């Protein structure tokens, strides 16, 4: 993304607009930085750990790290090309200053802190008074830090956690009751640095400035190298590459799991109750994830992800949980935090009660994922092959049950059409794998029989002749954007009359401009939500696959323009205001962007 200037950022009741956030990360943890330079979200040591900064969920109690000019300013920002290193340039009447932010990557050249946030401040022109404040609040703001000095460095501790505030040429650190602050002035050519090394269950590493500077440069170079290795050459390359980099931030490097998003409880409706924790790995996203990895030339990530998927699901085999912890665990108990929520959107939840739901589409996703993996030339070992065959057996006995569907509705289970389509895909992929002797074929005849039974169910009970479309669920008169996945994953070919009718029905019923709603029917929750961005990208891809390429390109152009100034997307957008809603950066949205760009690229070739 190119540098884009924004006016002096405006906060409402202390909250930045969600669109104003950029994200940095190191493959283990993620921070959100507003365009006024405030780090309003940071969970350490891991992406799904309790937070050190959570001002985005409670500006009074959450904790944050602010760094900005102390006079009126405008801000412009970008990622350093091909990296997840953020650069914010503040322009004031008296001068210009540039802040470069990164969560540094591990480096064998020096003793690296367990985790580290580095902020470099460079005076570019004139003179700018700067102020900073670190307000650490451990455990989602529940625990105040103990502030002390260690070797002359301010250190905040709480239980097994400790974070140091190392500042060089950034003013003399001052203590208040619960924060450390500083003031300094940049001149043209001056350079200051503030680093936050962090330790969990180990002694703090207090790095010298030269090592912090070197790690920041190493981090940028490493990200650039990773980007240079990506193989995508199709349309909207810049947006696809940024999506790949955002997706890479959601890859939990210690295990290979991929989180759905980096945050929890950012609202799908301002002031509403639709606030969920997305820092888990959803089986629902697995096929898109693996497909994106393969298309982008990320073979190590693809293999690691499939290994993790098969390991994580082993404890619940042959059943699949809707989601798994990044460490591979299955427990995700939902609880409410005593935080006010983003602009009063409460409850603030951590954990996710959807974990215990029955979601039949996940089985299709897993078999589709394994199928994609093998079609890329990879092999399955005997254990994994046996388990995939057992999952296909399990589908034969389970597909007739109602479920919560891909959207995890909290109303009564239904016979969701997309779930049944994915059951068909599960059995179809199992048959293909068995046909290629990649999984045991003992029960292939039964899979064949049940696959036909699923198709009969979908085509007789989940299709409306009146609408010429598949319906949201059996006997329903509604449509649902998830039906597009039937086409995208290959339930029916793109020239199938019923499938193209379904695409048209989704477009006519759920689309408004570039925005597509998931559904219009009830889901067991009060309130409403914004337009679901992944569905918009799915529609663009579906149009391309149906041969409606011009419409697809036009829609895609509009959608790419909807990203924020640094090319990131949240889960949803308010069509009326364009405001971001829901957790961010949202993996599914970025995955859908990558998939749509690839499909449209193929269609236009």
């Amino acid at each position, binding site marked *: 993304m190119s540098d884009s200037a924004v006016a002096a950022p405006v906060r409402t009741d202390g909250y930045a607009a969600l669109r104003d956030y950029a994200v940095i*990360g*190191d*493959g*283990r943890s993620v921070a959100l930085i507003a365009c006024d330079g405030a780090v309003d979200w940071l969970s350490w*040591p*891991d992406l799904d750990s309790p937070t050190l900064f959570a001002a985005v969920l409670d500006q009074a109690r959450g904790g944050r790290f602010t760094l900005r000019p102390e006079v009126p300013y405008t801000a412009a920002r970008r990622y350093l090309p091909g990296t*997840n290193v953020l650069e914010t340039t503040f322009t004031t009447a008296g001068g210009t200053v540039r802040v470069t932010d990164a969560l540094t*990557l*591990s480096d064998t050249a020096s003793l*690296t802190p*367990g985790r580290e946030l580095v902020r470099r401040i460079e005076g570019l022109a004139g003179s700018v008074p700067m102020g900073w404040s670190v307000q650490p609040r451990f455990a989602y703001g529940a625990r105040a830090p103990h502030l002390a000095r260690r070797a002359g460095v301010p250190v905040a501790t709480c239980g097994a956690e400790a974070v140091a505030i190392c500042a060089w040429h950034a003013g003399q650190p001052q203590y208040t009751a619960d924060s450390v602050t500083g003031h300094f002035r940049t001149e043209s050519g001056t350079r200051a640095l503030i680093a936050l090394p962090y330790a*969990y269950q180990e002694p703090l590493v207090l790095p010298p400035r030269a090592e912090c500077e070197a790690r920041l440069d190493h981090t940028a170079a*490493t*990200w650039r*190298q*990773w980007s240079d290795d990506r193989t995508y050459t199709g349309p909207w390359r810049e947006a696809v590459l940024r999506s790949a980099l955002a997706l*890479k*931030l959601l*890859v939990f*490097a*210690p*295990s*290979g*799991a991929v989180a759905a998003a980096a945050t929890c409880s950012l609202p799908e409706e301002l002031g509403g109750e639709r606030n969920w924790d997305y820092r888990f790995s959803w089986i629902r996203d697995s096929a898109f994830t693996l497909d994106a990895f393969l298309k982008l030339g990320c073979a*190590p*990530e693809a*293999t*690691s992800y499939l*290994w*993790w998927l098969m*390991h*994580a699901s*082993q*404890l*619940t*085999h042959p059943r699949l949980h809707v989601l798994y912890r990044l*460490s*591979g*665990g299955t*427990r995700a108990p939902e609880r409410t935090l005593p935080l006010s929520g983003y602009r009063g959107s409460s409850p603030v939840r951590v954990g996710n009660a959807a974990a215990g739901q029955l979601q039949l589409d996940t089985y299709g996703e897993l078999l589709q994922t394994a199928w994609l993996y093998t079609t890329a030339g990879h092999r399955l*070992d*005997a*254990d*994994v092959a046996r388990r995939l065959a057992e999952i296909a057996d399990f589908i034969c006995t389970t597909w007739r049950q109602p479920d919560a569907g891909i959207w995890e509705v909290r109303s009564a289970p239904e016979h969701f059409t997309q779930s049944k389509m994915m059951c068909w895909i599960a059995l179809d992929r199992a048959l293909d794998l068995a046909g290629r002797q990649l999984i045991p074929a003992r029960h292939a005849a039964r899979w064949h029989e049940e696959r036909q039974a699923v198709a009969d169910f979908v085509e007789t009970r989940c299709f409306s002749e009146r609408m010429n479309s598949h319906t949201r669920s059996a006997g329903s008169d509604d449509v649902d954007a998830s039906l597009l996945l039937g086409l995208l994953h290959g339930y029916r070919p793109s020239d199938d009359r019923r499938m193209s009718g379904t695409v048209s029905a989704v477009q006519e019923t759920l689309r408004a401009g570039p925005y597509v709603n998931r559904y219009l029917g009830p889901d067991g929750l009060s309130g409403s939500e914004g337009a679901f961005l992944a569905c918009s990208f799915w529609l663009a891809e579906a149009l391309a696959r149906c041969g409606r390429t011009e419409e697809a390109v036009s829609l895609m152009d509009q959608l790419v323009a909807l990203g924020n100034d640094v090319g990131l997307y949240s889960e949803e957008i308010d069509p009326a205001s364009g405001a971001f809603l829901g957790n961010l950066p949202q993996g599914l949205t970025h995955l859908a962007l990558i998939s749509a760009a690839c499909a449209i690229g193929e269609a236009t070739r």
Partner: protein
Amino acid sequence: MSIWAALAGGFVGTLILTTGLRAANTFNLTRIDLPFLLGTAFTGDRTRAKAIGYSAHFINGLIFALLYYAVFAAIDYSSWWLGTVFGLVHGLFAATALVNILLPLVHPRMGTSQTSAPDVALLEPPGFLMLNYGRGTPTVTLAAHLAYGTIVGGFLTWPS
């Protein structure tokens, strides 16, 4: 008490330990798979890893049995219950240090808490008490090692 008895005990003990862990695995009590963890240190091919891992695991079992034998010989006493105590210590060591801390340090495909982008682990780290592999893992691992220690102790006591 002889070296041959130690080797025989080590072989049978490892067989029981491995079978026990495999059974727990099959019953979804844990995701731990020691031969797999060991084998993937040598190869990324999952099938070959298991073959190599089983061999390495049996060799480890024999080496540990010889260690038991050395300690029994040093104190000039052996019994099945002392073997059980050694198994307890052995199991605790495996759960808290060997697999949790030492293995990730030397395993080229296993993540650690320090693994960062752009690297990505092929194997998730075990975590404290190997709890990342399921809540039943510490119990199952300890029980398997108790059985191993008891068997090695019994072999080293027999026929006296």
